[in-house]
């Protein structure tokens, strides 16, 4: 069993989406968790709990990668779910179960691209989420919808690899080393992509970030 951060570390931490836990606590908490290898081998024999754990461990990352390709919630959801099912159907083909995450993300990326291809290039402008119902949205909801729209636009201007890295790092909380291992690129390249992605996002979202800065100052 490899330790934290080593090349074969396979136990994922909880997503940054819903938990903010110091790393040391996470290490202790998850040191007893089965590795990806254990779970993959058990899932191959139809172990429902093992597969369920794999799904719970990677559903958010699968969604983030799918979103980085499709830029749309519904498509990302479909692609992520389909990919998790395809991964089970083809789990015997996962030759290195320690690298399950990277293998799964390749499936997610391919499924997402296929989904986009199936739908054809979306030439028509996307219907804004706020237009889904005729009812006016509450201020907070409106703000979130606008923010999501702005993020979607900003992300769509990034190269695909930067988009994926920034989402896995900032949304999912994957470490540089984990991203490097799972995407099969050098750690330094991950850092560099993340740096440029953030820079570009900051530039595109400058107005919003300044507003957030101002709010923080007022609160302080």
């Amino acid at each position: 069993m490899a330790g934290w951060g080593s090349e074969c570390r396979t136990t994922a931490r909880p997503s940054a989406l819903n938990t903010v836990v110091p790393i040391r606590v996470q290490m202790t908490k998850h040191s007893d968790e089965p590795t990806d290898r254990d779970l993959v081998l058990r899932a191959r024999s139809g172990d429902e709990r093992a597969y369920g754990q794999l799904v719970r461990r990677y559903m958010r990352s699968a969604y983030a990668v799918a979103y980085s390709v499709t830029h749309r919630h519904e498509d990302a959801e479909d692609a992520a779910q389909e990919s998790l099912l395809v991964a089970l159907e083809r789990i015997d083909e996962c030759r290195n179960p320690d690298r399950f995450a990277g293998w799964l993300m390749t499936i997610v990326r391919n499924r997402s691209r296929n989904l986009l291809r199936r739908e054809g290039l979306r030439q028509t402008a996307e219907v804004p989420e706020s237009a889904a119902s005729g009812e006016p949205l509450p201020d907070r909801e409106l703000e979130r919808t606008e923010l999501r729209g702005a993020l979607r636009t900003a992300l769509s201007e990034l190269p695909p690899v930067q988009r994926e890295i920034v989402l896995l790092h900032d949304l999912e909380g994957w470490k540089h080393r984990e991203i490097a291992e799972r995407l099969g690129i050098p750690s330094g390249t991950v850092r560099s992509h993340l740096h440029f992605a953030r820079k570009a996002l900051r530039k595109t979202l400058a107005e919003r970030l300044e507003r957030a800065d101002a709010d923080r100052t007022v609160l302080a």
Partner: protein
Amino acid sequence: MKTEQNDRDRELERMLRALDPGRDDDTYWPRFHRSVMGRALDELARRRVVADLTVADLVSSWGRTLVPTAAAAAVVAGFFLLRPEAAPADEALIAVEEALVEEGTSIPDLLRDEELPDGTGVVFASEIF
């Protein structure tokens, strides 16, 4: 400067979390999980069946196929072996040596293409060994 940069990164991170569909809906990820698991049930069951198969099961499953096939083959073979002997063919082949020593048949007659009065004829065949 560095702190400001970190603040900006954290702010960006916070903004990106708006893309998490579970941020404002605690039930989203549990529903997502249930949906995947529900759709995976058949495949998981199939895998359990395959994994539970023992060597004996495998042999017996072969047996289930092999025994009827072997029985059918035996019946067919028996039928051919036990059926009444077929009537001798009209065109019996005899070797040239036999034909030459046969009484009452001259060689020119023998080599003639048409059928002889007794119903025999000549077929030239070559064999390569």
